[in-house]
């Protein structure tokens, strides 16, 4: 036996090398998986490095934006060079803080609109592969983040949490090739699924050919699947190709969120259910019934105003 093992050692090892990755493939369902302890150890090593590099890059970019690009202005004001330099340094810091403040304020407004409980996190790294579009954020289980939690910005949906460690989490974005988000056309209420396609485009699939889809339409999350709250903007329709035959039409969409400038995101830890506003006729009937009983009719207490869209129009709330 040992003799044969020695004789065919090379082929056995070759077979094992080919077998191990094939066994590891679990794309059939691609269910969110957790890290093993040794994976967590590696992530705890690499995540701080990613944070430091990301922070350094931010500093460099803000340095360029706030100092190097202002060199010509500085030459025009030679008399005030010393004073200016000090002021520019201070302004550079303040401007960065102000921009961050504005972004966070927008996030907060968004949070209030949708009555969400959330954790704000910073993007520290992107996917190792150019084919996939995941991002890593600097918040994890210690901040209450769990798998499958939706990740949004003030603009719209970013993606959902794929895996977590204590201090970081991987987010699979709507641009990812294997991402699928149930969505509705805000105007025509046509329903479909948004799937990743290229670096800046997604596909709106399974939309019936007869559905009314037009370029510029806003697509909002449909709420099916239980991950994303209903009514959050996901993408804008950029191209419609309606064939003369067939069941569905080809629709290309551009994500609402600008992924090239994504710095902070909001992980939704709890999304409250928004009660449906009553129809005027229903409301009248209810108030009449209440008057008959001698009770005072009251307005239904909505936990949030209807979701607004980037176009400024209030998004209609529909039954799921």
């Amino acid at each position, binding site marked *: 036996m040992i003799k044969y093992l020695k004789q065919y050692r090379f082929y056995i090892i070759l077979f094992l*090398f080919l077998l191990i990755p094939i066994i*590891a*493939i679990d794309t059939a369902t691609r269910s969110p998986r957790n890290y093993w302890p040794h994976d967590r150890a590696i992530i705890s090593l*690499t995540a701080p490095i990613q944070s430091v590099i990301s922070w350094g890059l931010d500093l460099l970019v803000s340095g360029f934006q706030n100092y190097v690009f202002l060199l010509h202005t500085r030459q025009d004001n030679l008399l005030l060079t010393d004073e200016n330099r000090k002021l520019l340094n201070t302004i550079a810091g303040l401007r960065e803080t102000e921009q961050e403040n504005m972004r966070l304020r927008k996030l907060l407004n968004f949070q209030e609109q949708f009555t969400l409980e959330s954790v704000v996190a910073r993007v520290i790294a992107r*996917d*190792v*592969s*150019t084919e996939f579009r995941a991002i890593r954020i600097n918040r994890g289980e210690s901040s209450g983040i769990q798998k499958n939690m939706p990740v949004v910005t003030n603009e719209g949906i970013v993606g959902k949490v794929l895996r977590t460690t204590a201090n970081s989490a991987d987010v699979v974005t709507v641009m990812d090739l294997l991402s699928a988000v149930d969505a509705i056309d805000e105007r025509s209420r046509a329903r479909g699924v948004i799937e990743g396609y290229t670096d800046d485009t997604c596909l709106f699939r399974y939309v019936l050919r007869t559905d009314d889809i037009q370029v510029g339409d806003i697509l909002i999350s449909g709420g099916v699947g239980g991950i994303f709250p209903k009514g959050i903007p996901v993408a804008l329709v950029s191209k419609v190709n309606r064939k003369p035959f067939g069941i569905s039409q080809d629709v290309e969409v551009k994500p609402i969120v600008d992924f090239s400038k994504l710095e902070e995101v909001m992980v939704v830890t709890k999304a409250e259910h928004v009660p449906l506003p009553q129809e005027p006729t229903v409301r009248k009937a209810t108030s009449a019934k209440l008057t008959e009983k001698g009770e005072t009719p009251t307005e239904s207490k909505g936990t949030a105003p209807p979701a607004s869209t980037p176009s400024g129009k209030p998004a209609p709330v529909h039954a799921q």
Partner: protein
Amino acid sequence: MTRLLFQALNAPVLILLTAVGIAIQTSLFAIWPLNYFQPDIVLIVVIWCALRRNFVEGGILTLIAAHLAELHSAVPRGTFGVSYMLVYLLVRGSSRMLVIPDLSSFVIVTLFSSLLMKISTATTLHLLAPDIQVLRNSLFLLFPGAAVAGLLSIWGYQWLEKFDNFTYKNRRSEESLEQDLNLDSEGF
């Protein structure tokens, strides 16, 4: 003794360096437009393992490096394992037939391996999930990715060569160590 210790540390340190390399790659090349020119650190390590390690050690290191890459990606588990193992076996096989003597040959091998890696990953993904639209993006980034990988490999292999020299992992050091151990055992 020190040489033995350094040699034993070679593989774990190489794994750590790969992890650090991936961390740098994913964060430094995260901003637009650098994300289109992301090099593949793991590919360089895999090719180095294929050409400078024995079959078993190189294969195990390849599987570990592929796993490290998967930890930093949303790619389905095992996809990189298949692709990098394919690259490893092909480079190793071709080194038996072709002469790959110096740095410039290594760079050419890297360029072709990068193309092969992308095509292999796209094919694996297409076979696993035919509905996903992977080909367009892969083809678009096929040559920029290969060019950057080739460029980085010029320094990458030099650093790996120095690292192997430092840890007595190169062929000459190993032969010298073996001779020393033989002499020790014979009482010299």
